[in-house]
């Protein structure tokens, strides 16, 4: 799987009702650390069936950012069974991203 772009319209289906854990990357195009983390997320998503990675642009999707209290980016939020179970703010290493969702 590759990283899926999520908006308000498919958030419920892709994130809340997902069968597998979801790593949601709240980001923006103007955010340098977000852009730096993108290739790491692409690599983790590639061929991964254990969990999925979604990308949410906070400028386009300010309602989602608001709903999940995102006030610093990059912000990674892990959802399991529709519930937030983990969160990390700021640029982190690829291993640390994987650990966030794999536990």
């Amino acid at each position, binding site marked *: 799987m590759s990283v899926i772009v999520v908006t308000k319209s498919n958030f419920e289906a892709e994130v809340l009702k997902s069968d597998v854990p979801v790593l949601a990357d709240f980001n923006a195009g*103007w*955010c*340098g*650390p977000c*852009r*730096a*983390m993108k290739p*790491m997320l692409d690599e983790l998503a590639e061929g991964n069936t254990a969990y999925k990675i979604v990308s949410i642009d906070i400028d386009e999707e300010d309602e989602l*950012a608001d709903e999940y*209290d*995102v*006030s*610093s*980016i990059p*912000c990674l939020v892990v959802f399991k069974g529709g519930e937030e179970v983990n*969160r990390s*703010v*700021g*640029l*982190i*290493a*690829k291993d640390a991203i994987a650990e966030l969702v794999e536990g």
Partner: protein
Amino acid sequence: MFDHDIIVVGGGPAGMTAAIYARRAGKSVLVLEALSCGGQILNTPDIENYPVEAHISGFDFSQKVYEQAKGLGAEFKFEMAVELRDEGDEKVVVTNKGEYRAKAVILATGSANRKLGVEDEDRLVGRGVSYCATCDGNFYRKKTVAVVGGGNTALEDALYLADLCQKVYLIHRRDSFRGDDTNAERLKARENVEIVYNANVTKLIAEKKLKAIEVTDKNTGDVRTIELNGLFVAVGRVPENNNFAGLIDLDEAGYAASGEDCHTRTPGVFVAGDNRAKALRQLVTATADGAMAATEAVKYVNER
């Protein structure tokens, strides 16, 4: 057995420039970067003071330098250096994943945000506490925020936020500013800015998110509660030299005590960039350090 002629610890502008110079001198180079190439400059949306490009984002700048260094044959590994050992002719860098050996090492580790050091600060990062006004200011549009600090960054942050936010408090532990006079005067002229002098932030009040701070007047001991949505911490930076303090001398603030030649007290170990003691920490002085440290490291390797 040497893996490389030169290992560069840190893939920011200083480290990557060092890699470029060392490769052009024909040395094999490994760059060890803990996160992603660029370092602190990644947070800068628009660089306007580096020669050649009138405008470039910190991310694009970092990518270009990375491609340049890689194109010249520098090797990059994304690992965190935790220790440096001097075995005479051999320097050993220990990372979270392995050990690497080289004839010379350049420490270009940069610096990290200095924290306030109050309870719950870490937990509230991204929930009201931020270290980057230009990154996160937009989340606080028309809201109330405070900036802590008295240096240029704090003043610039407060000015930036004053354009976005309903109200900006500037909490400063002294009674005057060491930052740029113009910025201080500009701030004082803003109607939505209130400067709180002689005060320290002593408590963060939060449920799920930050909702208020307590500030204590350092002369009178009076405590004042300020309700707000966001707190921007701009109290300086901390050089990342601690893992290597056994081999290099540090000044009182923790910066590597080294001259313009980038030497340290350990032959074959050099420093470059923001973690070195110097008068001006800018992109252009970081890259200049990289060139100097690499040139000295190459000389050292050649004389072995």
